[in-house]
């Protein structure tokens, strides 16, 4: 650029007017009041579609109802059958008795063993018959798991039952 152009630019720079303080407000007011602009803006006034309300109601109902799969799964709510409580209580009672019985049986077995080895046998000694039955099945007494379903081992018939425990169901019933 020439020195004359520089001089001209410097001269022109002396006049740089700015908006006065009220200018912005006046422009905004003018725009807001512009009827043509209002008409233009009014051309875009969207309204809910015909099925909007129904869709919103359905969505709210879905939310309130929860997952339909959960509602379906809730259709299966099994309950204990009438005999269940009695079976469980019976089994627990048997557990309680077994806990005291095992200690007693082992003590009785030990006493019977002492009697067998120490006391002379004689005819008509009825007590020794019961002790002999107990001794004959000491192996069963030693096997804890085989007696857990029963209340007590009191006679030969019960010993035979214990020996056949494979055929006894979980409730202790043959």
């Amino acid at each position, binding site marked *: 650029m020439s020195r004359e152009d520089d001089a001209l630019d410097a001269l022109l720079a002396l006049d740089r007017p700015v908006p006065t303080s009220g200018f912005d407000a006046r422009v905004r007011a003018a725009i807001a009041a512009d009827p043509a602009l209002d008409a233009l803006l009014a051309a875009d006034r969207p309204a809910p579609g015909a099925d909007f309300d129904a869709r919103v109601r359905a969505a709210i109902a879905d939310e309130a109802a929860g997952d339909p799969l959960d509602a379906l799964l809730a259709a299966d709510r099994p309950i204990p059958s009438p005999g269940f409580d009695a079976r469980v209580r019976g*089994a627990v009672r048997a557990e309680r008795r077994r806990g005291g019985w095992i200690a007693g049986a082992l003590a009785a077995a030990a006493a019977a063993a002492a009697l067998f080895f120490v006391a002379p046998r004689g005819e008509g000694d009825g007590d020794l018959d019961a002790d002999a039955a107990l001794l004959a099945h000491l192996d069963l007494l030693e096997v804890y798991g085989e007696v857990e379903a029963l209340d007590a081992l009191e006679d030969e018939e019960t010993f035979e039952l214990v020996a056949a425990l494979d055929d006894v169901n979980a409730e202790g019933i043959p």
Partner: protein
Amino acid sequence: MSEVFVLDEDARLMCRVRDGDAGAFDRLFERWRVPIVRFAVRFVGRQDRGEELAQEVFLKLYRARARYEPRERFAAWIFRVATNTCLNEVRRPEYRHRPVDVEDLAQEPTDRSRPRADDAVHALRLQAAVREAVATLPDTQRAALLLQQDQGLSYDEIAAALDSTTSAVKALLNRARRTLTERLAPWLEARRATEGVGT
């Protein structure tokens, strides 16, 4: 800093069982008989075998009483025992799933506003379909679903019951629900149609 565990009422009852209170065990049994039977029956799909397994659970609890130390919610503990009992059952080599029989269903009466015979038949068929669909899920998916859906256990508690992780439990539940949604699709559609739910 170690977590402080606050005893819930059932854990306190179990402590009393440990200390020799037979009445406390009766109370626990009364409170948990339905949830445990429900879990076991839905797990194996059969009322009779489910009840046998439930009985085993209560006996295990009773036998373990001397060693009981409350380290978690009682619900989480009893369902860990129930889950292991049921998983052991279905993992026996001789175990075979038997399809659900409508005759076998024992149901808690819930809807007395629908006394009509065809409604009752419909309800039984729906129950049988739901039970069969659940009983044929893979074992761990089924366990996770029943623990969450029926018993309200947290992800952490379900993970503890299954000896797994929380993220694995979430994956199991996601897969279980997708599978069930497919298997029960006709029932879900029918329900939506009759109740006008969803689009």
